């Protein structure tokens, strides 16, 4: 059986045109997906059964026992942290927010180690964006700044940006200019019309210089700005102003480097100013397929998009104080639930050390380094392959993910609902 128009549960592109061939409840073919998506949909070796740690060893147990152990750990904690959330569907994320409320926990997503600074930048300036289809149909200039879709979002160029075709862009790549700004000549940079190589950590100054040139005040600038020639920046500014529709697509190159949210803040201002000259939009190249969804769910449920602390019964938001790396790095949390994320691999090792000293619950289909630090391990069905539900693309468009095959594992939502029920029951017993 061929299932058409499947959504890909890998990156923020959330491609929705995948064809998947299923035979006897097994995925036997994946078409149109990139290497990343295909690998995810085809699947990997799974965690077989729920486990709890006994005398240092993870030993298999029942789901009921794992739920109860998890609930006890969370109930005993004074400052539990519920972290992950981006490789699952919104239905599970909603349940997670409810669990966080019930526990008086901190809930935070993987956004805080990727585009968290972008969100803080947006809080400073707002974001002039669009859906990806708008770029496909209209953009004649694409700026990739600190983003490398050639490796991180392989189908982005073809479906949405530099190489896509639409109403006002019938020639695709030929009718467009592509500028790449990066510290290294990436796969994406090799296909650019103009590549500006900058030194790490100088993005803010370069963007300020561009803002000056765009505002017609370039004459006060020195000949070189952080090592980049003014002439190069003048050329970039001219390309931006003379475009009919420009788009500024930025990645972790801006958020992970010195300046962090200030880099984004400045880029958002540059784009706002460009709109006085032409049409320009800006977008964060979000990583996980539903990291955007967590921000949306968390915002409508709590008023804030991430790093929400429910300790005092109402949401308190302050990344720098309430983000996962903040509280783990400072050893301020006394229990952690990890779902649909792998902090042991993705946090700085110095922060991961904080997980070694506290009880950790993991909900995930796959074994990963977080498993080594977990005390309760609950295997789940793969969202977007074995479970249907909602996901938000990097541009904020929501789509419904399909269920392709049946699973012997419970969904993230079911697992969370069970833990929540245990929490409520144990609390009532006391």
């Amino acid at each position, binding site marked *: 059986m061929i299932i058409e128009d499947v959504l890909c549960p890998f990156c923020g592109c959330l491609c929705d045109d995948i064809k998947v061939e299923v035979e006897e409840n097994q995925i036997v073919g994946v078409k149109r997906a990139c290497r990343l998506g295909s690998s995810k949909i085809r699947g990997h070796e799974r965690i077989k059964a729920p486990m709890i740690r006994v005398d240092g060893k993870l030993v298999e147990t029942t789901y009921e026992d794992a739920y109860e152990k998890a609930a006890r750990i969370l109930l005993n904690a004074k*400052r539990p942290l519920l972290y992950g959330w981006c490789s699952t569907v919104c239905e599970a994320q909603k349940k997670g927010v409810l669990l966080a409320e019930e526990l008086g*926990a901190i809930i935070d997503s993987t956004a805080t180690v990727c585009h968290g600074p972008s969100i*803080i930048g947006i809080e*400073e300036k707002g974001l002039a964006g669009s859906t990806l289809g708008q770029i496909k149909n209209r953009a004649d200039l694409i700026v990739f700044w600190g983003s490398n879709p050639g490796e991180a979002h392989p189908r982005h160029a073809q479906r949405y940006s530099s190489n896509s075709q639409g109403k006002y862009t019938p020639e695709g790549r030929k009718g467009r200019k592509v500028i790449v700004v990066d510290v290294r000549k990436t796969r994406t940079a090799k296909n650019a019309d103009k590549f500006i190589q900058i030194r790490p950590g100088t993005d*803010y100054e370069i963007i300020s210089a561009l803002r000056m040139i765009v505002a017609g005040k370039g004459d006060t600038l020195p000949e070189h700005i952080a090592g980049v020639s003014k002439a190069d920046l003048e050329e970039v500014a001219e390309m931006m102003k003379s475009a009919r529709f420009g788009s500024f697509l930025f990645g972790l190159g801006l958020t992970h480097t010195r300046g962090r949210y*200030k880099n984004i803040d400045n880029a958002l201002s540059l784009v706002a100013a460009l709109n006085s000259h032409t049409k320009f939009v800006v977008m964060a190249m979000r990583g996980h397929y539903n990291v955007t969804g967590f921000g949306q769910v968390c915002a409508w449920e709590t008023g804030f998009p991430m790093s929400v602390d429910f300790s*005092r019964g109402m949401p308190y938001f302050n990344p720098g*104080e309430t983000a996962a790396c903040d509280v783990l790095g400072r050893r*301020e949390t006394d229990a952690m639930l990890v779902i649909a994320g792998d902090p042991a691999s993705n946090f700085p090792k110095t922060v991961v050390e904080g997980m070694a000293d506290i009880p950790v619950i993991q909900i995930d289909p796959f074994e990963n380094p977080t498993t080594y630090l977990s005390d309760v391990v609950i295997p789940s069905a793969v969202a977007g392959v074995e479970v249907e539900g909602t996901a938000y693309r990097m541009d904020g468009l929501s789509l419904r993910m399909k269920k392709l095959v049946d699973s012997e594992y419970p969904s993230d939502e079911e697992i969370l609902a069970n833990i929540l029920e245990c929490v409520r029951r144990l609390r009532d017993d006391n």
Partner: protein
Amino acid sequence: MREIVITPLKTFSIPIEAEKICPNIVSSLALKEIEGIEVWEGNRKMPLSDLFRISGDEGSTSPEDTLISLKGDFSRVKRLGEKMSAGEVVVKGNAGMHAGNSMTGGEMTIKGDAADWLGREMRGGLITVKGNAANYVGSGYRGESCGMRGGEIAIEGSAGDYLAEHMCGGKIAVEGDVGDFPGASNRGGTIHIGGNAYLPGAEMASGTIIVKGRARVLPSYQLEGTVGLEGMTLKKFLGDLVDNGKGNLYATSVE
């Protein structure tokens, strides 16, 4: 002056939220009543006396006439002196995040270091730090257009990143170095930095920043000449011109 002494009973790992440790709240309370004021350890609410020993003078007085002495390590005790309008708070150790948050008057002295968001959204009064202060001294809450609007913060050591972000008034003086982006998006107020600074006054609309050490200055600042100030010769810049800013930035040497 009535002195109330508060001492932690243990070393905290989970931060304590104790905005009620504030002259405005405790001045009129008997010691027994102060023991009962509510603080939070993570998601548990408890009386102050579960976590701290309370001693000092009995009686009831006005906030103006109240001194709160905090003895020991308060580096994980947050929101000390929040919204205080008068009186004195002395921390004889380190202070946790948000010390002096939204204070409008009175005096706070921190003998050790101050954590992030010291004097956030301060309106008046004086905060003195003998040690170092971390990030966001005198800044605003996320998304707000105004941080500190009045009062004074004096730091004898160094300060972290985003010092005085969105500052709209008042004065901050740091004797040592500061981190990245001091005075970002400020609209008024005065910042004195004794040591070095990295990209001061980004998007400054108005206000004054003086850097006596080295500063890496944004390309969107225009050099206007040199001036003598406090016996030193300083370069004077106008900016931040990205936003037609009219701020004054002075620095001795420029990277």
